[in-house]
């Protein structure tokens, strides 16, 4: 186990966003590369619009990521990116959406979401390796809003911190997703990689 370089990926989003589907797809990608993978998810009450946190770990036995342990943080919603920052290792990679899904108290006008610039500032205090993208817009452009998650995975693969690139994710999409949604997700992958390089 110890001869494989450990990579811990922490993913966070809002219940119903498709975070868990993306998590499984990434874990399948790692497995297909012949690497030891374990992945975890916490749901239950979270399915009712709460926070969903999930993990993919390469070269580890535990499915859990503690504070300060994540090499990569993928935030499918910007406020959740900020909430999960304490899980990030100093100097780790952040890929985050910039499109808010306001929680109820915000929607009701009782509390305010931080501005996207506040979030970027908080991130930059922990790392200078951060990428931001409009994942829902990209998803819609690819053909389905949920595919924005795959766009973000594509960006993570292209960022160079994983032991494989976007082509591994492309193969996993072809091998694991139902045929009728493959094209949309392959398009999303392409757009995600482009967004990283933009």
């Amino acid at each position, binding site marked *: 186990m110890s001869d494989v370089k450990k990579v811990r990926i922490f993913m966070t989003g809002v219940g119903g966003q498709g975070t868990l589907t993306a998590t499984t797809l990434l874990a399948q990608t790692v497995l297909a590369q012949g690497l030891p993978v374990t992945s975890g998810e*916490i749901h239950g009450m979270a399915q009712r619009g709460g926070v969903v946190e999930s993990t993919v770990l390469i070269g580890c036995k*535990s499915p859990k990521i*503690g504070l300060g342990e994540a090499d990569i943080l993928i935030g499918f919603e910007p406020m959740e990116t900020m909430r999960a920052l304490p899980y990030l290792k100093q100097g780790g990679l952040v890929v985050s959406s910039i499109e808010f899904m306001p929680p109820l108290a915000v929607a009701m006008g009782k509390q305010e979401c931080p501005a996207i610039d506040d979030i970027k500032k908080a991130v930059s205090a922990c790392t200078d390796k951060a990428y931001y993208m409009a994942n829902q817009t990209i998803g819609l452009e690819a053909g389905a809003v949920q595919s924005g998650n795959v766009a973000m995975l594509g960006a993570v693969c292209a960022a160079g911190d994983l032991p494989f690139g976007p082509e591994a994710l492309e193969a996993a999409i072809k091998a694991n997703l139902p045929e009728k949604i493959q094209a949309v997700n392959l398009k999303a992958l392409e757009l995600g990689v482009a967004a990283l390089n933009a």
Partner: protein
Amino acid sequence: MANPLLNEKGGDTHLLLGNEAIVRGALEGGLQVATCYPGTPSSEVPDTLYKLSPGGKYYFEYSVNEKVALEVAAGATLAGAATLCTMKHVGVNVAADPLFTLCYVGAPGGLVLLSADDPGCHSSQNEQDNRIYARSAGMPVFEPSTAQEAKDMARDGLKLSRKHGQPLLLRTTTRVNHLRGPVEFGPAPDPGKVEGFKRNPSKYVPIPAFARPMHLALMERMEALREEAENSEYNTVTGSGKLGIACSGISRAYVADALDNAGLADKVTLFELGFSYPLPEKKCLDFIKSVDKVLVVEELEPVLENDLRVLAQKNKLDIEILGKDVLPRHGEFTVTLVENAIREQLGEAPVAACDCPLPELPMRPPNLCAGCPHRGTYFAARKVFGDDAVYSSDIGCYTLGILPPLQTADFLICMGSSISAGGGVAQASGQTVVAFIGDSTYFHSGLTGVANAVFNSHDVLLVILDNRTTAMTGHQPNPGVDKTVIGENDHPLDIEASVRGLGVTEVRTVNPFNQKKTLAAFEELKALKGVRVLIAKEPCPLYSRRVYKKVAPQVAYVADSCAGRFDCLDKLACPAMFKEGGKAAVNPILCNGCMLCLQVCGHIKAKKRGS
């Protein structure tokens, strides 16, 4: 393509959820009967068995509660069937009555009881440690830490249980149930026919005269199982350092990663217990004698720690055994937490703490979904009773009614307690009590509470929130449903008839989205005394979409005339609604078209979905 979980041949490797791995393991172990009551984090085990059941070679049922599930399982194993019974940790409390005696009677066909414990209370009301049940009742315990082990232990657990005729506890925790990892499949041959029950009253009927020798026989079986634990491949000692680490369950994963991170593997002797009870005493003694100090790494209760302390004392070994004095007795561990505990014992500096500050952000508490019928019921209850009633809640999605503005959950004990504990409040204090219970929970353990309330003349208004499914845990069927993901329910039970059958005379059934009628029914029942029941009947919208293929044709929108009073937002807290500028607005993608908000404010209108 057939589901690979049902493949009779082995050899393939699949990425599986821990709970799916348990299913595969049970099939490899020759599963013939499976029973359950769903409960997170165990639910995907029965859900997977249910979905596969049309093509599987086993009998499966969702039982009405855990006690019944274990009793059906008990009958099945007595008839010779290799049996799996699944539930969450608190479910074992419900099943505890048959469990203790079943351990006397035994399990001729083999019986694995899955107890999915929940350190950290991710989706539960407590953190109880069910390894203690096993010690009290007399069951061997397997504690997997990976998806592969979850599969292997479900298989080997069934076989071992059958070999010794003793029920076995497969004890997982949330992280194991909900991890994903590669699993290499073994063969899963057709288990064939169940042998059938063989009459033997002295063995199977625990009247006192028979129960006494049964207890002795149980202890003998457990001694034989202790020998199995001594020789089990699931119990391993590695390394040769002077610090000994003993661990079981998911803690083994944390220890492995911690040692790897810290590069300290050569400084410890690691004792991993996958088959953790009965305690393999010889192996434990050898381990204790080989080290200078022992650190026990286990989540929740000091179960293994106390076992080792007793063993050391019995053998007059003067050795320091650490556990709960350096590691917490509550919640989940992390790799870093475990790593620091190990570092401390080895005199190493702790891992540098993370200095990213915890941000102050709006919380994102789970909420009743857009279009949830419970919102309509709660809104009406609050309108009629306000803060004058004590709201007795129960286990299910509807507990989320606790949040403002609905605030209709004042206390909660366990499944089915709403009616009975509500009766307790009413009888003790004379306060007005409105109790809420879901349809599945009503069949689980609400029926007995209603019988009790009627018999003892309690003064309670019980609201049965009938959303036609068990929504919280993932839409499992219960006796009241008419349709499921794999077909019709041949014998749907009528809740209203059952309530009347239990002696309740004042029963009303309403659709909670019809506020006028719901309010009128509440007012009418408020004026009466004794046990009254209001059935609020309307399907869960998520279930409706999936099973009935029904989507409301309309969505709500806020007319330009909106005066910005925000009654809709403040009183309903529907996740589809938000403030935009000085006005309320509805997100048409999230709106499920329940039209409750139209009845709260005249400025909200309906339009055709998509227009």
